[in-house]
């Protein structure tokens, strides 16, 4: 698009941990070139809090709210705004929202896109270089975006989260054309509020065939609650109907990278590892000390999970003096 691109623009649909990660990544990129950082939000509902996250400018779209709108509506609304802003790089979250919208924007702007980036930097010519995981987590590819703007969606949990500070972003309003969409959102039913979302979870306690049945998840949920962890599962547990699909980790489920992943009764087949092997600390709880999960775990605990999981919960309670 532009021959004279400038700045980093983050696009978010809501104020959430993924948005803080956009700004964390965006700040590092912006500083590396001494260029400004902007955040574009769907509407002003959370403007105050968003302005404190380290962006130099906060762009609020005026007109019918895009919050919860389908991706073709977002594409139509953002295209002219991005053309006018002419950023060097546009960052979107690696959520369903970001990963649905970014390819549409890439086509609309004739831009280049990297999905699910793990690292980001500029080369000396100011072109974006990103690393991403490919081939079921077996390899990392470095991708060069040869045109501007360079678009990237960020793998959740791969970048440091910006924290609210004293500096307030300058708030600017941008009018978006009334978006015509050929899709219509009919309803949105939020997940049970008590459940921690897998993708952005700091800690995950996950269960597989070794749980023996749906009731096996009860002690796991108890441990998860104590740790403040989300609950994950292997495909075998999901396919058996022990737990809904949204909990599945792996090639045909979610790719996550929490700080702590506790795998209970999961053997660690390659398709499962594809979704979690970049977790910082992996704990394996398994009868079989020779299974792949136990071989690669940071801490492997051999034994019957039926005894070990409640024992760990009890120990955590004891440490906390409860």
């Amino acid at each position, binding site marked *: 698009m532009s021959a004279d691109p400038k700045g980093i623009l983050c696009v978010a649909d809501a104020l959430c941990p993924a948005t803080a990660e956009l700004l964390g990544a965006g700040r590092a990129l912006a500083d590396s070139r001494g260029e400004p950082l902007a955040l574009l939000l769907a509407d002003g509902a959370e403007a105050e809090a968003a302005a404190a996250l380290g962006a130099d400018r906060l762009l609020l779209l005026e007109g019918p709210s895009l919050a919860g709108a389908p991706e*073709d509506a977002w594409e139509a609304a953002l295209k002219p705004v991005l053309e006018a802003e002419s950023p060097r790089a546009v960052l979107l979250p690696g959520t369903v929202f970001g990963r649905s919208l970014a390819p549409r924007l890439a086509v609309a702007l004739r831009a280049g896109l990297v999905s699910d980036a793990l690292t980001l930097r500029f080369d000396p010519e100011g072109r974006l270089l990103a690393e991403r995981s490919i081939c079921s987590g077996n390899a990392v590819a470095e991708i060069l975006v040869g045109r501007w703007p360079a678009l990237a969606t960020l793998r959740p949990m791969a970048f440091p989260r910006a924290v609210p500070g004293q500096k307030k972003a300058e708030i600017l309003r941008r009018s978006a054309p009334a978006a015509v969409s050929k899709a219509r959102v009919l*309803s949105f039913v939020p997940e049970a509020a008590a459940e921690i979302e897998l993708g952005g979870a700091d800690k995950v306690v996950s269960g597989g065939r070794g749980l023996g049945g749906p009731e096996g998840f009860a002690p796991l949920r108890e441990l998860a609650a104590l740790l403040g962890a989300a609950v994950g599962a292997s495909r075998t547990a999901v396919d058996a109907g022990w737990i809904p699909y949204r909990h599945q980790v792996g090639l045909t489920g979610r790719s996550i990278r929490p700080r702590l992943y506790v795998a209970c009764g999961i053997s660690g087949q390659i398709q499962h590892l594809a979704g979690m*092997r970049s977790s910082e600390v992996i704990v394996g709880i398994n009868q079989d000390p020779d299974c792949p999960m136990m071989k690669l775990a940071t801490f492997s605990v051999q034994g019957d999970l039926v005894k070990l999981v409640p024992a760990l919960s009890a120990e955590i309670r004891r440490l906390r003096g409860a």
Partner: protein
Amino acid sequence: MPLNLLVCVKGTVSSTSGALRPEGQPLSPSPLDEYAVEEALRLKERVPGSKTAALSLGTPASEEPLRSVLSLGVESAVLLCDEAFAGGDPVSSAYLLSLAVRKLSAAAPVQLVLCGKKTNDGESGQVGPALAAWLGWPSACAVRKVVEVSETSLTVERALEGGVETLALSFPAVLTLTKEINEPRLPSLKGKMAARKAQIPRWGASDLGADAALYGKSAATSVVKTAPVPPRAGGVSIPGNTPEEKARALAEKLKEMKLL
């Protein structure tokens, strides 16, 4: 009104067998694409008289995965194949697929394109939504259920991070699907026989009237290098004679690492 349903299928190497050295290895449909094929077949059953077709972009070796799709009951297939397509990226692949959709639609308008949410090799998940954008069609990614289908539109359900969304899309449209949507069927012997004999036309750049500035080496992104992820070094085995001792030793480690 019957529908013309089109499935995009990428031939890839299985994740367990050296995906990093794909040369010479047999290709099969990328795992999530199998769910797209199954959903097309189910929609055909839901809307009698509908037709299904499969489309793949790849090397001549991608003919095999297309045959396996035909063996499941998809009626026809086209392979987009041209040396000039090499070196592209997901957005440029979507461009070429969009030209094929237009070409097919000129003969019989395609109402719905189905794709897997992402492939097991590139894993970008870009092709479905980018294809929709090239065509100017609405799209919904990560769909887990087709709730309703009519002559002019369909209603789908998808899981977002925070909950479940239901949306209606008017035809023509593009969906990408998760494995939650169905349970793929197995091919019949008869299907396999028919697939073996099927003619699979190949379309190249000139058949598609493709603009050389938008595909192959002209793609906006390029892979600079790929490197295998080194295997994780094994860690510490937690000692203890009883579950309680082990739990205590583990909790200590986690506490040291500020994970408790």
